[in-house]
């Protein structure tokens, strides 16, 4: 059944959590300010009204102990959703995430498991700067025992949320704030988007663009620009970073012989480095390139911030250079801006 209802990413997150909480009363949602009138940009709106303060509550500014609380509750029969408004703040919970949550099932020989979801928001926007914008998902990808998902659209935001709550492991749930208002087709009934299954969003024979989180949309926009130059790009969304669909990425890379991985994070030891390393180990002959945050700290001045992130124009230029080396190409800034309106809505 194809669904014709569209929903924003933020409302899809909300619906995913709401349905997961209706389905299973062990689920609870907590974190700084989840129950105030702003409701985490609306993502937790109405949940305290429906489920009550016992299941939806704010916390003191104690990320370390609150992460431990989630773990302790999870191993004793609950299913927490711990929410952070910025991924930067997760650093204060790192000890519990890295030393306890990721290890608990293995280190005790399978005697206990930790079904918990840790939501955090990443993302650029107006002057957020060095400590309010970081995409640190690669830190978590490095740690065996954690899962990491990064929905790029409303459909996946809901389906991954339901799958994450039902999963018996700690799941790092990475949300990009710029995606919150974007719309996609989203079924009303509860559904899961499976982890470890990449999705081809656009097919083209010349170059494969892999985008992480909102970089999927930037890649789509780049693909439009490239099309005007007669270059056809495949755009691939890994959907989850751990588990990562290495095989699908390799297949889509083989088809075009050209790969650019565009991450919403730094390239050094990042998701893009991991993907390229895997392909190198497989002996790929494809040309490959990583793109991501500039290897520096994120500045606030728009004049500098604009240079920090990959964008449709820089992605298109990189693809052009890969396919037609030495040929100058700079997309018309107006066309690049226009491409900025593109977003993937489905079908899924």
């Amino acid at each position, binding site marked *: 059944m194809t669904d014709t209802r569209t929903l924003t990413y933020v409302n899809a997150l909300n619906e995913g959590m709401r349905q997961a909480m209706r389905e*299973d*009363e062990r689920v609870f949602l907590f974190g700084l300010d989840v129950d105030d009138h702003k409701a985490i940009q609306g993502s937790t709106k109405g949940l305290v009204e429906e489920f009550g303060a016992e299941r939806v509550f704010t*916390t*003191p500014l104690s990320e370390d102990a609150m992460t431990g609380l989630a773990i*302790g*509750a999870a191993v004793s029969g609950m299913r927490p959703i711990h929410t952070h408004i910025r991924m930067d703040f997760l650093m204060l919970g790192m000890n*519990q995430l890295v030393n306890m949550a990721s290890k608990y099932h293995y280190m005790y020989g399978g005697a*206990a*498991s930790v*079904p918990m979801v840790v939501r955090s928001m990443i993302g650029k926007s107006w002057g957020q700067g060095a400590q309010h914008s970081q995409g640190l998902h690669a830190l978590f990808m490095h740690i065996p025992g954690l899962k990491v998902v990064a929905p790029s659209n409303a459909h996946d935001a809901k389906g991954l949320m339901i799958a994450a709550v039902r999963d018996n492991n700690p799941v790092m749930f990475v949300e990009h704030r710029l995606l919150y208002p974007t719309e996609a087709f989203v079924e009303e009934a509860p559904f899961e988007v499976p982890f470890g299954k990449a999705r081809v969003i656009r097919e083209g024979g010349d170059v494969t663009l892999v985008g992480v989180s909102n970089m999927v949309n930037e890649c789509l926009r780049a693909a439009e620009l490239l099309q005007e130059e007669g270059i056809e790009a495949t755009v691939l969304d890994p959907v989850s970073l751990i588990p990562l669909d290495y095989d699908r990425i390799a297949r889509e890379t083989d088809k075009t012989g050209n790969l650019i991985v565009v991450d919403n994070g730094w390239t050094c030891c990042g998701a893009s480095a991991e993907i390229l390393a895997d392909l190198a180990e497989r002996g790929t002959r494809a040309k490959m390139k990583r793109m991501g945050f500039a290897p520096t700290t994120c500045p606030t001045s728009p004049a500098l911030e604009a240079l920090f992130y990959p964008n449709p124009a820089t992605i298109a230029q990189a693809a052009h250079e890969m396919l037609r080396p030495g040929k100058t190409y700079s997309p018309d800034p107006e066309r690049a801006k226009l491409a900025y309106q593109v977003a993937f809505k489905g079908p899924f």
Partner: protein
Amino acid sequence: MSAPRPNDPTQPTADDLRRLYRSLRLIRRVEEEVARVYPTDKIKSPVHLSIGQEAVAVGVCDPLETRDYVSPTYRGHAAYLAKGGSVPAMIAELYGKATGCAAGKGGSMHLIAPEVNVMGASAVVGTTVPTGLGAAFAQKRLRTGAVVAVFLGDGATEEGAFYESLNFAALHRLPVLFVMENNGLAIHTGTEKRWATDRICERVETYGIPAQRFPTSDVIDIRAATIEAIAAMRDGGGPHFLECVTYRWREHVGPGYDYDQGYRDDSAYKEWQARDQVELIGGRLTDTDRDAIDAAIETEIAEAFAFAEDSPWPEPDRLYADLYADRDFTPVRGV
């Protein structure tokens, strides 16, 4: 202590004394045996012995029921055993065998016994304070009536997570008993080099948490306070805090004594030995009772070590097993 009331549950009966002695003696003897075997290299992970500190774990765990939880530390043999954790599974774990309580993947610092609600112990100081808090949150939310005893050292009280946990426990009136084993040392460094003041009970009380100090960690006193705290917590009362002053007889990690190392002499050790709780409680038993308990413990320990010896190593394929929990989900309603 006030004069005993008739039928006062905090005053031990003869049965209680036998049980307390059994538990104290079992822990002491298991750890002495661990220390004895250690130089043979059969034990495959570092051991932090509780010898001398047994009274704290025993006094707290004796009145706990199976449904109640403990959240132990890496110096956790005593809490694990006092709560009823299996001796053979513990020794096999120390040996790195497949039959260990953590399937040979955790070792001495990562004991766990879900069947008696011993939560996983951690080698990172202070980390099991918030996880114990989480278990207490779950008990309150699930209305089990169970309580959680969180064990921690004096060093762990210096971690931020400890204060974060006190605050949250008090704010949400969670059924947690914080049990601080104050042995005055973090590895080799005394509290005088680490604490601006030693008034830990006062610090805790500012959160609205009742705090009690036990200057000699008398097992009967700790047990009595625990009984009262449990009753209050089962009744919806919030957290309690016990500061149990105690003494680590052996080195921080490993089987030996370290009075020749220059950072402490054996004068305090001699004082603590003179009021050894294992001996004091043992002395209140009849010789027949004591001999029978001692003999049973020796058999139990011999069997546990034999079990560990005879148990297989984990198969190579276990290296990757249990990294992730299986996909097995049945929604629960009506909690």
